[in-house]
């Protein structure tokens, strides 16, 4: 009897806002105010429900969090 191969989970882009916010002792509300994005949209980003991100939003996030896009997200 052949064993079935376990189905691999689909990979997707994941945001690490939680980790970055914790490192910088910031809340999501503060980040939303500084970046100029609504709290609802940041929550969508944080919970990996976003389908696309504007370069302007990404630049603003990197600017406020003082990080590179690669630190903000990963493909896993």
């Amino acid at each position: 009897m052949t064993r079935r191969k376990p189905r691999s989970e689909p990979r997707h882009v994941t945001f690490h806002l939680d980790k970055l916010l914790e490192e910088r002792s910031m809340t999501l509300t503060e980040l939303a105010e500084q970046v100029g994005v609504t709290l609802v949209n940041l929550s969508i980003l944080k919970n990996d429900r976003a389908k696309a991100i504007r370069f302007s939003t990404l630049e603003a996030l990197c600017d406020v969090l003082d990080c590179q896009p690669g630190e903000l997200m990963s493909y896993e």
Partner: protein
Amino acid sequence: MSFSQSIRHFLFNQDSWLWRPNRRLLYWITTAAFAYAIAATVLDAIDVHPRYWFRFEAGKEKREFESSFSDERRIYTLANGSLMVPDLQEKMPSGVRAEGSLPVYVTVDRSTFKSRALTRLSALPLDLLFVVMIWLFRRVALSAVGTREAPGDPFVWANVRRLRIIAGLICIAPAVHAWSGIAEMELVSGTLHEFSMFSWDATGMFVAFGMGFALAVLAEVFAAGIRLREDVEGLV
């Protein structure tokens, strides 16, 4: 407010009744249409036929309206007039050309099982087609019209599916209609003998295909709109 101002208010002011989403009215209109379609189907299934007629005789100023239910099935069809009345063309006034088809009502002889089955089979497929189409249209219309507090949203995947099904049903309607014509011709052939004739409505078929195609395009426009909205909603 003058009459012209009232008309202008009714047509262009968003507070007027015309602009207000009236879901309740739409609900009852579509429910009545659906109930009528169901009733027509049930009556055809049990082979009972309502008849309404309005008679007006111009000379006598007499108006009559009669309605009745009967288990007698009459079929409206075309008989070959040229064969029935060989001198039909000669009886026509000058400048009028007889086409040969004569509209007639034929009472169906339902003494055999075959004729009883055919009376139902000639009517039921079209009835069911209408029932399904009215139900789907009703759902699409009700999803589009909401209330002021809860506006309707027609751009949902369920409506795309419904519109695709309606488009498909409209496209197959001429075939179902042709089947009804064939079954009815078989039913009346015993009475009409060699005078029975089958007419095929090519214009109706093209109109149905056109409407079906237009609805299929509309369904894809809905699908494109929904995809676009999903993308925009997920854009941060």
